[in-house]
């Protein structure tokens, strides 16, 4: 009878890989490569994501012996990947992104929403109203138009679903700053989705 063996924990694999076990390192790669690639696409672009992916695992391979377990391994690898993405982004000639400021909510002089409930609500139905591929393209384009600081916080917090505390840890800022940046990103992207669906204004 074959007794199923539970998958080894990250900590076990990290210890084995740090001691020179290549099979353990390959298991770490297999466990995280999809998530790192997805993160890289969200923080950079489809074009740059393969480079970020390679750089991340090269750094992980080199830095594994220094991993001390102060944060969870998953958080640590996301920090390595985020830094790799930010480095690559910085090395690219910065083309001025078209601002998303126009998509912030608008209010009348009394502070009341300037749009009607049906207009305000429509962004929440973007995935019903748009073709899947069109929405995917528009989503990527919209996220790329965010100011970098908002984009990083939004991607980690809302797209990768990390806790606010972990995002603060990865980005080296406090939790209130993360919340403020994510909030601005959500406001811009909410308005952007309304525009994409085609009913705003």
């Amino acid at each position, binding site marked *: 009878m074959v007794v199923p063996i539970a998958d080894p924990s990250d900590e076990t694999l990290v210890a084995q890989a740090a001691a020179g076990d290549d099979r353990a390192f390959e298991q770490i790669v297999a466990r995280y490569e999809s998530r790192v690639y997805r993160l890289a696409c969200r923080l950079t672009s489809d074009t740059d994501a393969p480079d970020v992916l390679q750089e991340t695992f090269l750094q992980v391979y080199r830095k594994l012996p220094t991993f001390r377990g102060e944060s969870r391994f998953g958080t640590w690898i996301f920090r390595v990947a985020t830094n790799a993405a930010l480095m690559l982004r910085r090395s690219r000639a910065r083309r001025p992104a078209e601002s998303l400021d126009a998509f912030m*909510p608008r209010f009348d002089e009394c502070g009341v929403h300037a749009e009607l409930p049906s207009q305000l609500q429509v962004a929440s139905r973007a995935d019903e109203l748009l073709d899947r591929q069109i929405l995917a393209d528009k989503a990527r384009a919209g996220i790329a138009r965010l100011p970098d600081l908002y984009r990083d916080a939004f991607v980690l917090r809302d797209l990768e679903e990390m806790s606010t505390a972990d995002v603060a840890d990865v980005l080296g800022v406090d939790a209130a700053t993360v919340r403020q940046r994510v*909030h601005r990103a*959500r406001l811009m992207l909410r308005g952007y*989705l*309304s525009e994409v669906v085609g009913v705003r204004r």
Partner: protein
Amino acid sequence: MNSVVCSSGVELLMDYLEGVLPPDVNAALEAHVAGCERCTAFVASYRETPRILRAATAIELPPEIQASLHAFLRAQRRRPPQ
């Protein structure tokens, strides 16, 4: 704080959803949204925005990129430490 209007309420939404508002502000915001059709609609779309964009950008790792990652890492491991 007991006079929330749409514009001030919007600024509280993130902290509200994260559960970090003081109780009196929390109650004032909930009272405003419950009585405001526009804010109810706005909050719904604000909450849905991350979910929609998460699903729309949830791409898979293409096999050819995976293969080149593995080949790259094998080559790196064969190199003597610098």
